[in-house]
Protein backbone atom coordinates (compact mmCIF):
# COMPACT_ATOMS: atom_id res chain seq x y z
CA UNK A 1 0.00 0.00 0.00
CA UNK A 2 1.34 3.39 -0.93
CA UNK A 3 1.13 5.92 1.81
CA UNK A 4 -0.80 9.04 0.88
CA UNK A 5 2.15 11.12 1.99
CA UNK A 6 4.14 9.94 -0.97
CA UNK A 7 1.58 11.33 -3.37
CA UNK A 8 2.61 13.97 -5.82
CA UNK A 9 6.27 13.98 -4.87
CA UNK A 10 6.82 14.89 -8.48
CA UNK A 11 4.89 18.06 -7.89
CA UNK A 12 7.29 19.23 -5.25
CA UNK A 13 9.11 21.36 -7.73
CA UNK A 14 9.93 23.91 -5.11
CA UNK A 15 11.56 21.33 -2.82
CA UNK A 16 14.48 22.73 -0.94
CA UNK A 17 13.79 26.27 -1.97
CA UNK A 18 13.09 28.93 0.58
CA UNK A 19 9.36 29.45 0.84
CA UNK A 20 7.10 31.88 2.57
CA UNK A 21 7.02 30.07 5.88
CA UNK A 22 8.53 26.67 5.36
CA UNK A 23 12.05 25.64 6.25
CA UNK A 24 11.57 22.00 5.43
CA UNK A 25 11.12 22.15 1.68
CA UNK A 26 7.88 22.25 -0.24
CA UNK A 27 6.67 18.82 -1.19
CA UNK A 28 8.07 17.06 1.87
CA UNK A 29 5.82 15.29 4.35
CA UNK A 30 6.60 17.85 7.05
CA UNK A 31 5.71 20.67 4.71
CA UNK A 32 2.40 19.13 3.79
CA UNK A 33 1.62 18.42 7.42
CA UNK A 34 2.31 22.04 8.32
CA UNK A 35 0.00 23.26 5.56
CA UNK A 36 -2.71 20.87 6.75
CA UNK A 37 -2.32 22.18 10.31
CA UNK A 38 -2.97 25.71 9.02
CA UNK A 39 -5.99 24.59 6.99
CA UNK A 40 -7.53 22.59 9.84
CA UNK A 41 -6.68 25.42 12.24
CA UNK A 42 -8.31 28.05 10.07
CA UNK A 43 -11.34 25.84 9.68
CA UNK A 44 -11.47 25.46 13.47
CA UNK A 45 -11.26 29.19 14.15
CA UNK A 46 -13.95 30.03 11.61
CA UNK A 47 -16.19 27.12 12.57
CA UNK A 48 -15.99 27.83 16.29
CA UNK A 49 -16.76 31.51 15.68
CA UNK A 50 -19.68 30.62 13.43
CA UNK A 51 -20.97 28.18 16.06
CA UNK A 52 -20.82 30.71 18.89
CA UNK A 53 -24.56 31.56 18.75
CA UNK A 54 -25.31 27.84 18.76
CA UNK A 55 -23.06 27.23 21.76
CA UNK A 56 -24.62 30.14 23.61
CA UNK A 57 -28.11 28.87 22.82
CA UNK A 58 -27.32 25.71 24.80
CA UNK A 59 -27.67 27.84 27.94
CA UNK A 60 -31.37 28.23 27.25
CA UNK A 61 -32.15 24.52 26.92
CA UNK A 62 -33.71 23.11 30.09
CA UNK A 63 -31.10 21.20 32.04
CA UNK A 64 -33.20 18.05 32.36
CA UNK A 65 -32.63 17.44 28.64
CA UNK A 66 -28.89 17.00 29.19
CA UNK A 67 -27.85 13.52 27.97
CA UNK A 68 -24.04 13.44 27.92
CA UNK A 69 -22.19 11.66 25.12
CA UNK A 70 -18.50 11.26 24.35
CA UNK A 71 -16.14 13.27 26.53
CA UNK A 72 -19.11 15.04 28.14
CA UNK A 73 -19.77 11.81 30.04
CA UNK A 74 -17.18 12.96 32.55
CA UNK A 75 -19.73 15.57 33.62
CA UNK A 76 -22.31 14.48 36.14
CA UNK A 77 -24.50 17.48 35.39
CA UNK A 78 -24.80 20.54 33.15
CA UNK A 79 -21.78 22.85 33.21
CA UNK A 80 -22.19 26.13 35.06
CA UNK A 81 -22.49 29.02 32.63
CA UNK A 82 -19.12 30.49 33.60
CA UNK A 83 -17.33 27.19 33.10
CA UNK A 84 -18.95 26.66 29.72
CA UNK A 85 -18.10 30.22 28.70
CA UNK A 86 -14.48 29.65 29.71
CA UNK A 87 -14.42 26.38 27.78
CA UNK A 88 -15.63 28.14 24.64
CA UNK A 89 -13.13 30.98 24.98
CA UNK A 90 -10.20 28.69 25.80
CA UNK A 91 -10.99 26.43 22.85
CA UNK A 92 -11.25 29.40 20.53
CA UNK A 93 -7.98 30.88 21.81
CA UNK A 94 -6.21 27.54 21.41
CA UNK A 95 -7.55 27.18 17.87
CA UNK A 96 -5.66 30.38 17.04
CA UNK A 97 -2.37 29.22 18.60
CA UNK A 98 -2.86 25.91 16.78
CA UNK A 99 -3.29 27.67 13.45
CA UNK A 100 -0.17 29.77 14.01
CA UNK A 101 1.82 26.78 15.25
CA UNK A 102 2.55 28.38 18.61
CA UNK A 103 3.49 26.02 21.44
CA UNK A 104 2.31 23.13 19.30
CA UNK A 105 3.80 20.37 21.42
CA UNK A 106 1.52 21.06 24.39
CA UNK A 107 -1.10 23.56 23.27
CA UNK A 108 -2.20 21.44 20.31
CA UNK A 109 -3.07 18.61 22.71
CA UNK A 110 -4.94 21.04 24.94
CA UNK A 111 -6.86 22.27 21.91
CA UNK A 112 -7.71 18.74 20.75
CA UNK A 113 -9.01 17.72 24.19
CA UNK A 114 -10.96 20.92 24.90
CA UNK A 115 -12.47 20.83 21.43
CA UNK A 116 -13.53 17.22 22.00
CA UNK A 117 -15.19 18.23 25.26
CA UNK A 118 -16.88 21.27 23.71
CA UNK A 119 -18.28 19.40 20.71
CA UNK A 120 -19.27 16.44 22.88
CA UNK A 121 -21.17 18.88 25.10
CA UNK A 122 -22.94 20.33 22.08
CA UNK A 123 -23.99 16.80 21.11
CA UNK A 124 -25.28 16.06 24.60
CA UNK A 125 -28.80 17.43 24.32
CA UNK A 126 -30.55 14.50 22.71
CA UNK A 127 -29.20 14.62 19.18
CA UNK A 128 -25.80 13.40 18.01
CA UNK A 129 -24.70 15.29 14.94
CA UNK A 130 -22.31 13.69 12.46
CA UNK A 131 -20.75 16.77 10.94
CA UNK A 132 -17.81 17.19 13.32
CA UNK A 133 -16.50 13.70 14.07
CA UNK A 134 -13.67 13.66 11.53
CA UNK A 135 -12.52 17.19 12.37
CA UNK A 136 -12.36 16.33 16.07
CA UNK A 137 -10.32 13.18 15.35
CA UNK A 138 -7.95 14.89 12.90
CA UNK A 139 -6.99 17.39 15.60
CA UNK A 140 -5.59 14.57 17.76
CA UNK A 141 -3.44 13.26 14.90
CA UNK A 142 -2.10 16.75 14.22
CA UNK A 143 -1.44 17.26 17.94
CA UNK A 144 0.60 14.07 18.08
CA UNK A 145 2.56 14.97 14.95
CA UNK A 146 5.39 17.43 14.27
CA UNK A 147 2.94 19.67 12.46
CA UNK A 148 4.70 22.87 13.48
CA UNK A 149 7.90 22.38 11.50
CA UNK A 150 6.52 24.31 8.54
CA UNK A 151 3.96 27.00 7.88
CA UNK A 152 4.26 28.18 11.46
CA UNK A 153 4.88 31.61 12.93
CA UNK A 154 8.18 30.32 14.33
CA UNK A 155 8.72 26.88 12.81
CA UNK A 156 10.41 24.57 15.30
CA UNK A 157 13.57 22.84 14.14
CA UNK A 158 13.31 19.50 12.46
CA UNK A 159 14.27 16.61 14.74
CA UNK A 160 15.50 13.17 13.73
CA UNK A 161 12.59 10.95 12.80
CA UNK A 162 10.24 13.84 12.09
CA UNK A 163 9.85 12.97 8.43
CA UNK A 164 8.90 9.41 9.31
CA UNK A 165 6.43 10.57 11.96
CA UNK A 166 4.98 13.08 9.51
CA UNK A 167 4.52 10.30 6.96
CA UNK A 168 2.57 8.25 9.50
CA UNK A 169 0.54 11.29 10.51
CA UNK A 170 -0.47 11.87 6.89
CA UNK A 171 -1.35 8.21 6.57
CA UNK A 172 -3.54 8.26 9.68
CA UNK A 173 -5.25 11.51 8.63
CA UNK A 174 -6.19 9.90 5.32
CA UNK A 175 -7.01 6.54 6.90
CA UNK A 176 -9.41 8.17 9.37
CA UNK A 177 -11.10 10.04 6.55
CA UNK A 178 -11.68 6.95 4.44
CA UNK A 179 -12.62 4.89 7.51
CA UNK A 180 -15.52 7.19 8.38
CA UNK A 181 -16.89 6.84 4.85
CA UNK A 182 -16.41 3.09 4.88
CA UNK A 183 -18.27 2.74 8.19
CA UNK A 184 -21.15 4.83 6.79
CA UNK A 185 -21.32 2.60 3.72
CA UNK A 186 -21.12 -0.53 5.83
CA UNK A 187 -24.06 0.69 7.94
CA UNK A 188 -26.24 0.99 4.83
CA UNK A 189 -25.56 -2.58 3.76
CA UNK A 190 -25.82 -3.85 7.33
CA UNK A 191 -29.20 -2.26 8.13
CA UNK A 192 -30.87 -2.25 4.69
CA UNK A 193 -28.94 -4.81 2.66
CA UNK A 194 -27.70 -4.64 -0.91
CA UNK A 195 -31.21 -3.61 -1.97
CA UNK A 196 -30.02 -0.16 -0.87
CA UNK A 197 -28.47 0.01 -4.34
CA UNK A 198 -31.94 0.06 -5.92
CA UNK A 199 -32.25 3.66 -4.78
CA UNK A 200 -35.72 3.53 -3.23
CA UNK A 201 -34.28 4.03 0.28
CA UNK A 202 -32.43 7.17 -0.77
CA UNK A 203 -35.45 8.46 -2.68
CA UNK A 204 -37.73 8.02 0.34
CA UNK A 205 -35.11 9.46 2.69
CA UNK A 206 -34.77 12.60 0.57
CA UNK A 207 -38.56 12.92 0.40
CA UNK A 208 -38.95 12.34 4.14
CA UNK A 209 -36.12 14.66 5.12
CA UNK A 210 -37.50 17.56 3.10
CA UNK A 211 -41.09 17.04 4.22
CA UNK A 212 -39.92 16.83 7.82
CA UNK A 213 -38.04 20.09 7.49
CA UNK A 214 -41.11 21.73 6.01
CA UNK A 215 -43.24 20.56 8.94
CA UNK A 216 -40.62 21.76 11.38
CA UNK A 217 -40.42 25.17 9.77
CA UNK A 218 -36.87 24.76 8.48
CA UNK A 219 -35.30 25.32 5.08
CA UNK A 220 -35.74 22.42 2.70
CA UNK A 221 -34.64 21.60 -0.83
CA UNK A 222 -37.30 22.15 -3.52
CA UNK A 223 -34.92 20.38 -5.91
CA UNK A 224 -34.86 17.31 -3.67
CA UNK A 225 -38.66 17.25 -3.44
CA UNK A 226 -38.98 17.59 -7.20
CA UNK A 227 -36.35 14.96 -7.92
CA UNK A 228 -38.02 12.52 -5.53
CA UNK A 229 -40.95 12.32 -7.98
CA UNK A 230 -38.81 10.34 -10.40
CA UNK A 231 -37.55 6.81 -9.80
CA UNK A 232 -34.86 6.81 -12.45
CA UNK A 233 -32.03 8.87 -10.90
CA UNK A 234 -32.00 7.22 -7.50
CA UNK A 235 -30.53 3.85 -8.45
CA UNK A 236 -27.41 5.36 -10.08
CA UNK A 237 -27.10 7.95 -7.29
CA UNK A 238 -27.31 5.23 -4.64
CA UNK A 239 -24.70 3.21 -6.52
CA UNK A 240 -22.38 6.19 -6.69
CA UNK A 241 -22.85 6.96 -3.00
CA UNK A 242 -22.09 3.39 -1.98
CA UNK A 243 -19.11 3.29 -4.33
CA UNK A 244 -17.71 6.41 -2.66
CA UNK A 245 -18.23 4.97 0.80
CA UNK A 246 -17.29 1.32 0.48
CA UNK A 247 -14.61 2.13 -2.09
CA UNK A 248 -13.02 4.78 0.11
CA UNK A 249 -10.07 2.61 1.23
CA UNK A 250 -8.92 2.46 -2.43
CA UNK A 251 -7.95 6.11 -2.03
CA UNK A 252 -5.02 4.94 0.08
CA UNK A 253 -3.52 2.98 -2.82
CA UNK A 254 -2.24 5.74 -5.08
CA UNK A 255 -2.31 9.45 -5.79
CA UNK A 256 -4.58 8.98 -8.78
CA UNK A 257 -7.08 6.92 -6.81
CA UNK A 258 -6.93 9.48 -4.02
CA UNK A 259 -7.68 12.40 -6.31
CA UNK A 260 -10.50 10.57 -8.05
CA UNK A 261 -12.01 9.53 -4.75
CA UNK A 262 -11.71 13.02 -3.28
CA UNK A 263 -13.57 14.44 -6.27
CA UNK A 264 -16.32 11.81 -6.01
CA UNK A 265 -16.66 12.21 -2.24
CA UNK A 266 -16.80 15.98 -2.52
CA UNK A 267 -19.42 15.69 -5.30
CA UNK A 268 -21.42 13.39 -3.05
CA UNK A 269 -21.56 16.08 -0.37
CA UNK A 270 -22.53 18.74 -2.91
CA UNK A 271 -25.36 16.42 -3.97
CA UNK A 272 -26.48 16.16 -0.35
CA UNK A 273 -26.59 19.96 -0.12
CA UNK A 274 -28.60 20.25 -3.33
CA UNK A 275 -31.15 17.55 -2.53
CA UNK A 276 -31.44 17.83 1.25
CA UNK A 277 -29.94 21.15 2.24
CA UNK A 278 -27.51 19.43 4.62
CA UNK A 279 -24.10 21.07 4.75
CA UNK A 280 -21.07 19.12 5.97
CA UNK A 281 -18.54 21.97 6.14
CA UNK A 282 -15.38 19.97 6.83
CA UNK A 283 -15.53 17.90 3.62
CA UNK A 284 -17.36 20.44 1.46
CA UNK A 285 -14.65 23.03 2.12
CA UNK A 286 -12.10 20.36 1.20
CA UNK A 287 -10.28 20.39 4.56
CA UNK A 288 -11.18 16.76 5.28
CA UNK A 289 -9.28 15.66 2.18
CA UNK A 290 -6.21 17.87 2.58
CA UNK A 291 -3.95 14.95 3.55
CA UNK A 292 -4.60 13.38 0.14
CA UNK A 293 -3.75 16.48 -1.84
CA UNK A 294 -0.49 18.42 -2.34
CA UNK A 295 -1.82 21.40 -0.44
CA UNK A 296 1.64 22.74 0.48
CA UNK A 297 2.71 22.70 -3.16
CA UNK A 298 -0.44 24.56 -4.15
CA UNK A 299 0.17 27.04 -1.38
CA UNK A 300 3.77 27.61 -2.51
CA UNK A 301 2.65 28.05 -6.11
CA UNK A 302 0.00 30.52 -5.05
CA UNK A 303 2.51 32.45 -2.92
CA UNK A 304 5.03 32.47 -5.78
CA UNK A 305 2.35 33.58 -8.22
CA UNK A 306 1.22 36.36 -5.92
CA UNK A 307 4.82 37.48 -5.50
CA UNK A 308 5.36 37.50 -9.26
CA UNK A 309 2.22 39.52 -9.79
CA UNK A 310 3.30 41.96 -7.06
CA UNK A 311 6.75 42.29 -8.65
CA UNK A 312 5.22 42.90 -12.08
CA UNK A 313 2.91 45.50 -10.64
CA UNK A 314 5.74 47.29 -8.88
CA UNK A 315 7.67 47.15 -12.20
CA UNK A 316 4.73 48.65 -14.03
CA UNK A 317 4.43 51.41 -11.52
CA UNK A 318 7.97 52.13 -10.37
CA UNK A 319 8.51 54.38 -7.42
Amino acid at each position, binding site marked *: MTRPSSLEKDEGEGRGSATLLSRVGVGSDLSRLGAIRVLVGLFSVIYLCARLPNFISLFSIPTHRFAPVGAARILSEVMPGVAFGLLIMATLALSITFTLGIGHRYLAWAFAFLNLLLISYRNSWGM*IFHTENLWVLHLFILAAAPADRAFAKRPSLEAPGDQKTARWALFFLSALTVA*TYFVAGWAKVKYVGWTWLEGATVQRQVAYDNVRKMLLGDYYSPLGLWLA*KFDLPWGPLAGLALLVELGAPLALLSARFARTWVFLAWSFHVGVILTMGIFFPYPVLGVAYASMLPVDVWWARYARGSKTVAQKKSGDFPG
Partner: protein
Amino acid sequence: MLVVGALLLGGTLLPLAPKARDGFPFSNYPMFTSPREFVRMTSMVGLKEEGISLDQGKAVAPRDVANDEVMLAAVTIARAVAGGPAAMARLCQEVAERIVARGNPEGWKALVVVEHAFAPMDYIDQGKMPEGSARPLHRCSIDSELSTTKKNPEHSAGGGSK
Protein backbone atom coordinates in the same frame (compact mmCIF):
# COMPACT_ATOMS: atom_id res chain seq x y z
CA MET B 1 2.07 8.83 16.68
CA LEU B 2 1.56 5.16 15.93
CA VAL B 3 -0.27 4.58 19.21
CA VAL B 4 -2.52 7.63 18.83
CA GLY B 5 -3.23 6.87 15.19
CA ALA B 6 -3.95 3.20 15.82
CA LEU B 7 -6.28 3.98 18.73
CA LEU B 8 -8.26 6.54 16.75
CA LEU B 9 -8.45 4.31 13.68
CA GLY B 10 -9.51 1.38 15.85
CA GLY B 11 -12.18 3.50 17.51
CA THR B 12 -13.45 4.69 14.14
CA LEU B 13 -13.72 1.13 12.84
CA LEU B 14 -15.22 -0.24 16.06
CA PRO B 15 -18.81 0.60 14.97
CA LEU B 16 -18.41 -2.10 12.30
CA ALA B 17 -19.09 -4.55 15.15
CA PRO B 18 -22.57 -6.15 15.06
CA LYS B 19 -24.13 -4.40 18.05
CA ALA B 20 -22.49 -0.99 17.64
CA ARG B 21 -24.47 2.09 18.58
CA ASP B 22 -24.18 5.68 17.56
CA GLY B 23 -21.80 7.76 19.65
CA PHE B 24 -19.36 10.62 19.56
CA PRO B 25 -16.74 10.95 18.19
CA PHE B 26 -16.98 7.33 17.06
CA SER B 27 -20.21 6.77 15.16
CA ASN B 28 -21.81 4.03 13.12
CA TYR B 29 -23.16 6.80 10.84
CA PRO B 30 -26.74 5.52 10.69
CA MET B 31 -27.90 8.09 8.16
CA PHE B 32 -29.88 6.72 5.20
CA THR B 33 -30.34 3.33 6.82
CA SER B 34 -34.09 3.43 7.52
CA PRO B 35 -36.53 2.20 4.85
CA ARG B 36 -38.87 5.20 5.47
CA GLU B 37 -41.74 3.53 3.64
CA PHE B 38 -44.13 4.77 6.28
CA VAL B 39 -43.00 7.24 8.91
CA ARG B 40 -44.27 8.69 12.14
CA MET B 41 -42.84 12.04 13.07
CA THR B 42 -43.78 14.67 15.56
CA SER B 43 -43.80 18.44 15.46
CA MET B 44 -45.23 21.39 17.34
CA VAL B 45 -47.77 23.72 15.83
CA GLY B 46 -48.89 27.15 17.00
CA LEU B 47 -52.57 28.13 16.62
CA LYS B 48 -53.85 31.70 16.46
CA GLU B 49 -57.42 30.84 17.34
CA GLU B 50 -59.01 28.34 19.64
CA GLY B 51 -60.60 25.42 17.88
CA ILE B 52 -59.12 25.91 14.42
CA SER B 53 -57.72 22.96 12.53
CA LEU B 54 -54.09 21.98 12.57
CA ASP B 55 -53.80 22.82 8.87
CA GLN B 56 -54.26 26.46 9.79
CA GLY B 57 -51.45 26.36 12.30
CA LYS B 58 -47.80 27.14 11.81
CA ALA B 59 -44.75 25.15 12.80
CA VAL B 60 -43.09 26.34 16.00
CA ALA B 61 -39.57 27.58 15.27
CA PRO B 62 -36.76 25.22 16.34
CA ARG B 63 -35.26 27.91 18.60
CA ASP B 64 -38.43 27.93 20.68
CA VAL B 65 -38.23 24.16 21.14
CA ALA B 66 -34.47 23.73 21.66
CA ASN B 67 -32.13 25.99 19.73
CA ASP B 68 -31.44 26.88 16.10
CA GLU B 69 -30.74 23.23 15.24
CA VAL B 70 -33.88 21.89 13.61
CA MET B 71 -32.81 18.31 14.15
CA LEU B 72 -32.30 18.88 17.85
CA ALA B 73 -35.77 20.42 18.02
CA ALA B 74 -37.23 17.40 16.20
CA VAL B 75 -35.53 14.94 18.53
CA THR B 76 -36.59 16.96 21.57
CA ILE B 77 -40.25 16.74 20.54
CA ALA B 78 -39.93 13.05 19.70
CA ARG B 79 -38.40 12.31 23.10
CA ALA B 80 -41.17 14.19 24.86
CA VAL B 81 -43.78 12.17 22.95
CA ALA B 82 -41.98 8.96 23.84
CA GLY B 83 -41.95 10.11 27.47
CA GLY B 84 -45.75 10.24 27.60
CA PRO B 85 -48.31 12.87 28.60
CA ALA B 86 -46.27 14.30 31.49
CA ALA B 87 -43.20 14.81 29.31
CA MET B 88 -45.29 16.38 26.55
CA ALA B 89 -46.97 18.70 29.05
CA ARG B 90 -43.58 19.75 30.37
CA LEU B 91 -42.23 20.46 26.87
CA CYS B 92 -45.37 22.33 25.88
CA GLN B 93 -45.05 24.46 29.00
CA GLU B 94 -41.37 25.19 28.36
CA VAL B 95 -41.96 26.15 24.74
CA ALA B 96 -44.94 28.33 25.62
CA GLU B 97 -42.85 30.15 28.22
CA ARG B 98 -40.14 30.82 25.67
CA ILE B 99 -42.65 32.18 23.18
CA VAL B 100 -44.22 34.39 25.82
CA ALA B 101 -40.77 35.56 26.92
CA ARG B 102 -40.11 36.94 23.47
CA GLY B 103 -43.47 38.62 23.29
CA ASN B 104 -45.45 35.99 21.38
CA PRO B 105 -45.02 37.87 18.06
CA GLU B 106 -47.14 35.31 16.19
CA GLY B 107 -50.07 35.95 18.52
CA TRP B 108 -50.59 32.28 19.20
CA LYS B 109 -53.28 31.17 21.56
CA ALA B 110 -52.31 27.53 21.79
CA LEU B 111 -49.58 25.02 21.05
CA VAL B 112 -50.20 21.50 19.89
CA VAL B 113 -47.85 18.54 19.83
CA VAL B 114 -48.72 16.76 16.61
CA GLU B 115 -47.96 13.32 15.29
CA HIS B 116 -47.76 12.95 11.52
CA ALA B 117 -48.08 9.43 10.14
CA PHE B 118 -47.59 9.18 6.40
CA ALA B 119 -45.71 7.60 3.54
CA PRO B 120 -43.19 10.16 2.24
CA MET B 121 -43.86 9.09 -1.33
CA ASP B 122 -47.59 9.79 -0.86
CA TYR B 123 -46.66 13.37 -0.11
CA ILE B 124 -44.49 13.47 -3.23
CA ASP B 125 -47.34 12.05 -5.34
CA GLN B 126 -50.06 14.30 -3.93
CA GLY B 127 -48.00 17.42 -3.31
CA LYS B 128 -49.48 17.75 0.17
CA MET B 129 -49.86 15.81 3.36
CA PRO B 130 -52.42 13.02 3.02
CA GLU B 131 -55.80 13.65 4.66
CA GLY B 132 -55.92 12.60 8.28
CA SER B 133 -52.18 12.15 8.58
CA ALA B 134 -51.86 14.63 11.46
CA ARG B 135 -53.07 13.74 14.95
CA PRO B 136 -52.89 16.02 17.99
CA LEU B 137 -51.23 14.43 21.00
CA HIS B 138 -51.14 17.25 23.48
CA ARG B 139 -52.28 20.82 23.66
CA CYS B 140 -51.49 23.72 25.94
CA SER B 141 -52.75 27.27 25.80
CA ILE B 142 -50.68 30.43 25.84
CA ASP B 143 -51.70 33.29 28.04
CA SER B 144 -49.46 36.13 26.94
CA GLU B 145 -50.85 38.73 29.33
CA LEU B 146 -50.11 36.64 32.37
CA SER B 147 -46.82 35.48 30.90
CA THR B 148 -47.74 31.99 31.91
CA THR B 149 -49.39 29.00 30.34
CA LYS B 150 -52.25 26.77 31.28
CA LYS B 151 -52.38 23.18 30.32
CA ASN B 152 -55.80 22.22 29.06
CA PRO B 153 -55.91 18.50 28.46
CA GLU B 154 -59.65 18.48 27.96
CA HIS B 155 -59.62 20.82 25.02
CA SER B 156 -57.40 19.62 22.23
CA ALA B 157 -57.23 20.87 18.67
CA GLY B 158 -58.82 18.15 16.64
CA GLY B 159 -60.17 16.15 19.51
CA GLY B 160 -58.61 15.53 22.87
CA SER B 161 -55.12 15.03 24.12
CA LYS B 162 -53.44 11.72 24.54
